[in-house]
């Protein structure tokens, strides 16, 4: 499953990282190098193996339905690059 320039372009777009066109070729070969090394996983027989998503074997803890946070917009807006009237201000979204 070699990664070509089109794939890198698509993946960079999905990840919202601007990669200049002239970088795509070298990125593709870099990623191919890593993926080729990763490819050895296919040697492992994993038939019937349950995927392991966590090292913790316990059920999900739950909390009570109680309001414990919020109420202070300053706490969440403190580091905002742009804000106004307690809103975050972001570039115009076109739907």
């Amino acid at each position: 499953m070699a990664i070509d320039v089109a794939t890198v372009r698509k993946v960079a777009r999905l990840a919202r990282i601007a990669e200049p066109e002239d970088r795509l070729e070298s990125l593709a070969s870099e990623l191919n190098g890593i993926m080729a090394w990763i490819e050895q996983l296919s040697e492992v027989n994993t038939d019937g193996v349950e995927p392991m998503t966590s090292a913790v074997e316990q059920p999900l803890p739950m909390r009570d339905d109680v309001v414990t946070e919020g109420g202070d917009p300053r706490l969440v807006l403190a580091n905002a690059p742009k804000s106004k009237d307690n809103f975050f201000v972001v570039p115009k979204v076109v739907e």
Partner: protein
Amino acid sequence: MSGLTDLTLKAALDGLASKAFSSEEITRAHIAAIEAARALNAYVLETPEKAIEMARASDARRASGDAGALDGAPLGIKDLFCTEGVRSTACSNIIGNFVPTYESSVTTRLWRAGAVMLGKLNMDEFAMGSSNESSAFGPVTNPWRAKGSNRPLTPGGSSGGSAAAVAADLCLGATATDTGGSIRQPAGFTGTVGIKPTYGRCSRWGIVAFASSLDQAGPIAKTVEDAAILLTSMAGHDVKDSTSLSVDVPDFASFVGKDVKGLRIGIPGEYRLDGLQPEIAALWDQGVAWLKDAGCEIVDISLPHTKYALPAYYIIAPAEASSNLARYDGMRFGRREEGTNLTETYENTRASGFGAEVKRRILIGTYVLSAGYYDAYYLKALKVRRRIAEDFTAAFHKVDAILTPTAPSAAFPIGEKSDDPVAMYLNDVFTVTTNLAGLPGLSLPAGQSSDGLPLGLQLIGRPLDEGTLFSLAGAMEKARGVMARPDRWW
């Protein structure tokens, strides 16, 4: 009172308790040491005023007789930990000048125990790296140099700042984090002790996430006992972290010095890689000899899926990271690089805010999760992860702990591996397995390379059995004798 920075944490706490010196005195000594050691680039933010304020408060507590377990001890904090009112950046430009309005759970515990914060420690950007070279603040230089050479060496990574600061006596101990070896490899490279506890021991709340299912906090310290003291205060159940383990934290220091006679120590054949450096192999043999002498039984074991751990890790960690780092989008905090529209703003912000290694991992992670590749890569890696964990489960039926080298080499020169990602990734070949399996792993300095650089050995334990690791490491530390210290060239 420059001698104050040479003290171990344990000795310093004893001195503080006996009022041989005050917290303000030992804190000022460290502040001076930090100022004098800026060439190492270990601290990305020094907080001397805050440190002195905290030290004075500690002295007041001591005077009134209600001191905590770490009262008055000045520590360094890896910049991955969010600290209230103190800039926290994960050493990434994208987080910029972020000043949290909250304090991480682990550091909250440390301050509650009375510790003093000296500042924030350098690290690889978002903890992605094994050499500290990916930091937005530039690399940390290892206090150690090869015999007869001035060439700057890496302290390892990602907790390179933490390891260097401890090795150079710029703090009594430091917080660190470990996703694939980021505590143990730098500890090995700097002659310090580092432990990554069982996954779930330390709360992840308030620590900038890299790979959530692998990230664990732990200490880097000067001695095994110091590491045990620090971990006792850092660990503990936290309801704000759903993966935090609801178990009691023992006094880990009480395990140091315990008799290890009769413990069975596993030596995994698969870790004896082709081309393992002879001095690493010799070091390993030395460790085996020490444990034998202490009365341990040495057992050959097999961890058959070892070689697949790193490739599996390089799917799982980037996949989680690609999603964890989506929040760095320039909308609510951190850097924003405007474009002509929203998508361009996202793309510019993330292109200029993330460094090359972080971008590389985000791209890999995005790729392995994308439609058509999920089963072949991500799901496959999760299954291999299970196989690796099962290897350990089987081994721990036969042994009480496992001994391996910490890293395949001693510290290497800055720049030597920065052009070859895979060569860099191989640094974690011995450490990454415990992250995948969630097991505790401890690295302690066990000797020196032929050119005088520290080398570490790793002990791996059963889940939640950090205590046995501290006992074994204590015994090995004793057998080893006093470690050499780096020359103060800075």
